[in-house]
């Protein structure tokens, strides 16, 4: 290949005996140790190119030993290395040599940085599949054992994730050893390792024989669930979901439920929080019978927990809980067993709890149907629309579409309006911003008449807000409204009001006119743009404030493509040419840019 490149450029051309294809590879290899981390990273990412050039033998005998000790580098380099090695089997000679990749990954699996370790473990899991069963027992399983009995907890935590990939393919004798190792990690001295074991318990259970699950995993689960550290106990709740999926209803009742009941009443709020957070998963895994007998009462307790974080997590699950119930019992269960607690939460002392509830409560209306919604939920919605905390009101308003499908929004409109007006005038601009974003949705639900009558003035008021982010959002809002209600509506209601602002004494408001025109011109089309908007823009070219003038140039550039040639040549061009001679540098710049973009030169 080198010779074939002939007399062209490239390093090979001058020397007779050199190989020009080696040069870029040589650079890559040298840059593995460059002082610039970006270059090292670049080289590591092209590790496969290096390995390909070296060939499988030298990759195994030289490159991998070098990489095995390259553990002093920056995290991002190590992360890239760990990732590369996962796809390296082909480059070291195929599955027969996959075990050569284990030493560097073993080292990476012990570094302190979790992301690197996790990536090394992920690559190890990938490579394990490429081992033959013999190689797995000869190389991979010993590696897992080494990690599992390592001095430092980083190596033992990494081992926890590797058991489940070698177990299904190991011989019975080795399987017993693996189970033994996992057992001992579950009672490790350091909480870090117990946490890693607890978080992999479910995954490991899935690859075990059912008998072993019952005889070994369940006791481990029970132990971890009563660990002295709540950070371990809370992970057992997660494992509970996976284990439950493997067991029959009867076994669940005797083997898992006692532990879960304990978790629901755990002294630590973090454990109870976890139960609330994983409630839907638990509900699905445990099945309808246990749900009815045990989980619903548990959920009631979580909804009135003394810790607000727990109540908020439970409140978040109210809708999913309903959806996961059997269709025939849904309505009764929610109405009789859940709704009384929800009513309490509407007036909770903690704003997070109330806003969590407000974000899902509207979803219940689909489950409960029209009559129940009107009778029981509507009063709650109305109360929430008057809540002192703006987030609660926003969450209700943002989910109006759910309730609209069931009872129609008109039921709410009387209360909705004051709530919207109050949010629209909230002292915090982020609240105002949030409500603006729901305006197009509200407009769609409430219809054009109601909108014109009640909300239009709000939308116009935002255009002169003293915070730029609000004016900007208000501009975008107008565009979305025009898309919804059409050009005729725009011409009658929006455009005149926008154009009036062009004479405002405040130059910021005059600029808002320009921004609105930028946003609206496309939606409004050629006729309105040419007849109504263009004259105003052109007139503003004579504004005394330079910022307005260069925004005129920008606006002309923006609306130019919508205009016809006559307007462009006859009206826009002279104005831009004049602005191109402006004394202000910025005005000149933007005018010239517009001229060149619109090809008016």
């Amino acid at each position, binding site marked *: 290949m080198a010779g074939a490149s002939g007399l062209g450029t490239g*390093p*090979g*051309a*001058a*020397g007779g*005996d*050199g*190989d*020009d294809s*080696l*040069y870029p*590879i*040589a*650079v890559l*290899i*040298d840059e*593995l*140790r460059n002082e610039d981390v970006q270059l090292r990273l670049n080289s590591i990412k092209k590790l496969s190119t290096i390995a390909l*050039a*070296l060939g499988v033998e*030298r990759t195994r005998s*030289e*490159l991998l*030993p*070098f990489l095995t*000790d390259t553990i*002093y580098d920056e995290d991002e380099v190590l992360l890239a290395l760990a990732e590369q090695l996962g796809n390296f089997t082909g480059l070291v000679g195929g599955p027969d040599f996959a075990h050569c990749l284990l030493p560097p990954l073993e080292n990476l699996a*012990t*570094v*302190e940085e*979790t992301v690197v370790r996790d990536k090394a473990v992920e690559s190890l899991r990938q490579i394990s599949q490429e081992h033959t069963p013999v190689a797995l027992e000869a190389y991979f399983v010993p590696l897992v054992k080494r990690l599992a009995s390592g001095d*430092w*907890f*980083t*190596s033992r935590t990494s081992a926890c994730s590797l058991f489940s990939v070698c177990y299904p393919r190991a011989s019975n004798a080795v399987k017993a050893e693996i189970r033994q190792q996992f057992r001992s990690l579950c009672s490790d001295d*350091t*909480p*870090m390792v117990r*946490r890693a074991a607890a978080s992999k318990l479910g995954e490991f259970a899935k690859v075990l024989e059912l008998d072993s699950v019952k005889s070994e995993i369940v006791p481990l689960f029970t132990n971890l669930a009563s660990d*002295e*550290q*709540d*950070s371990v106990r809370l992970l057992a709740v997660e494992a509970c979901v996976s284990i439950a999926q493997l067991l029959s209803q009867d076994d669940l009742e005797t083997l898992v439920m006692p532990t879960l009941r304990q978790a629901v009443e*755990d*002294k*630590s*709020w*973090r454990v109870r929080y976890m139960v609330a957070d994983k409630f839907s998963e638990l509900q699905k895994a445990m099945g309808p019978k246990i749900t009815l007998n045990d989980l619903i009462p548990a959920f009631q307790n979580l909804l009135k927990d*003394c*810790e*607000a*974080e727990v109540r908020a997590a439970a409140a978040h699950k109210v809708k999913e809980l309903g959806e996961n119930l059997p269709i025939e019992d849904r309505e009764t269960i929610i109405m009789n067993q859940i709704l009384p607690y929800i009513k309490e939460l509407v007036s909770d002392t903690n704003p997070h709890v109330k806003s969590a509830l407000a974000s899902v409560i509207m979803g219940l209306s689909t489950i409960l149907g029209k009559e129940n919604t009107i009778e029981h939920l509507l009063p709650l919605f109305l109360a929430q629309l008057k809540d002192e905390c703006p987030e609660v009101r926003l969450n209700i308003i943002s989910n109006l579409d759910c309730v609209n499908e069931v009872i129609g929004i008109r039921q709410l409109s009387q209360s909705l309006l004051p709530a919207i007006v109050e949010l629209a005038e909230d002292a915090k601009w982020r609240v105002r911003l949030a409500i603006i974003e729901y305006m197009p949705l509200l407009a769609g639900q409430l219809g054009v008449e109601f909108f014109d009558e009640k909300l239009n003035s709000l939308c116009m008021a935002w255009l002169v807000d003293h915070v730029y982010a609000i004016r900007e959002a208000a501009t975008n809002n107008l565009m979305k409204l025009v898309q919804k209600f059409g050009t005729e509506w725009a011409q009658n209601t929006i455009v005149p009001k926008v154009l009036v602002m062009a004479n405002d004494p405040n130059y910021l408001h005059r600029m808002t006119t320009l921004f609105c025109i930028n946003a609206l011109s496309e939606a409004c089309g050629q006729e309105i743009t040419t007849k109504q908007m263009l004259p105003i823009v052109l007139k503003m070219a004579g504004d005394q404030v330079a910022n307005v003038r260069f925004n005129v140039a920008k606006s002309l550039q923006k609306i130019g493509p919508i205009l016809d040639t006559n307007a462009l040549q006859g009206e826009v061009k002279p104005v831009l040419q004049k602005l191109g001679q402006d004394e202000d540098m910025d005005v000149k710049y933007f005018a010239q840019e517009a001229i060149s973009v619109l090809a008016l030169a």
Partner: protein
Amino acid sequence: CCCGRELFSWRLHSDIISTVEFNYSGDLLATGDKGGRVVIFQREQENKSRPHSRGEYNVYSTFQSHEPEFDYLKSLEIEEKINKIRWLPQQNAAHFLLSTNDKTIKLWKISERDKRAEGYNLKDEDGRLRDPFRITALRVPILKPMDLMVEASPRRIFANAHTYHINSISVNSDHETYLSADDLRINLWHLEITDRSFNIVDIKPANMEELTEVITAAEFHPHQCNVFVYSSSKGTIRLCDMRSSALCDRHSKFFEEPEDPSSRSFFSEIISSISDVKFSHSGRYMMTRDYLSVKVWDLNMESRPVETHQVHEYLRSKLCSLYENDCIFDKFECCWNGSDSAIMTGSYNNFFRMFDRDTRRDVTLEASRESSKPRASLKPRKVCTGGKRKKDEISVDSLDFNKKILHTAWHPADNVIAVAATNNLYIFQDKIN
């Protein structure tokens, strides 16, 4: 109590030492200073050629942890002084520590490197560039042994969470979280997350004019990951259980000794302020230091301490002048020995005090070059309070209040102590038989 000992002293810090801390094994000792520097000492391992070297601590690594900064929003200078250092439990061959100044906590990694890669493609051994046109074969670098190099690298920076000055950091026994306390708030961090922390205690009153007390120190329980304590300027200690609620504004235990009305004075409140709180290794007791005494509390008894040791009771008559020269606000720390049978804390005139809890004996020792030679035993010192001064005694009036020992540390297993006397570090240990 252990008094016969060898002495090593260092004066490596150019600045005043502001914190001293052994790691979990005791093989490393970290010190921080007013100039933002951290110096780490390593204990020499058994060495056949130098039989006496066992136990000697030598400098292992030195690095600049914090730099002076300026808060432009508040027009405040942020000192680089290291307020506290805490080691993390060892997780791999490297060592990790947290260091903090008034505002910013940093996680440092201290690691060793003893191999170096050799061999480049584009240059030869002495660094001359090779002709890139004449590369005939690729060279993969080879690792060769080299002299041990110790590197300290910053791993994480936990900033912008404290409005007031950070006085304590403490690593949780769950190995993944730690707390940081300032005058009015305590925050909980995850060691891997720098952009978020949870406020677990907030004693800031809505109206700052109603402020009556501040947090002076805080520490996690050594084994129970949900328990921590914090002490206040009013001489009380609150124990909180993080299991009961997310915000620990309501304590689960409140330790306070009823005030003795007979000794009440203008200075009572100032001298009862707690400057340090430390759990015993067993987790059963905690120790608090106030201006004149050190107290041991049983966690099961909130009404009064089980032991009170006077550190320098002779200063009670001097409180007025100590107030005038601001010494009364000095923050003395205290520490336990490895078996919780003895405690140590500092005093003035380069004196430090040790109390044996079993025998109830106590001793005053002096950390100074002038009074002690290497490998010699430390002589107990005595302060005379009465009129007649015996030989070897020192009068209260001649104590030097500029020579204060605020920071001390005790090896977690052996009888080795580290004492910071302004800008000198002294390490004492029992004589090897």
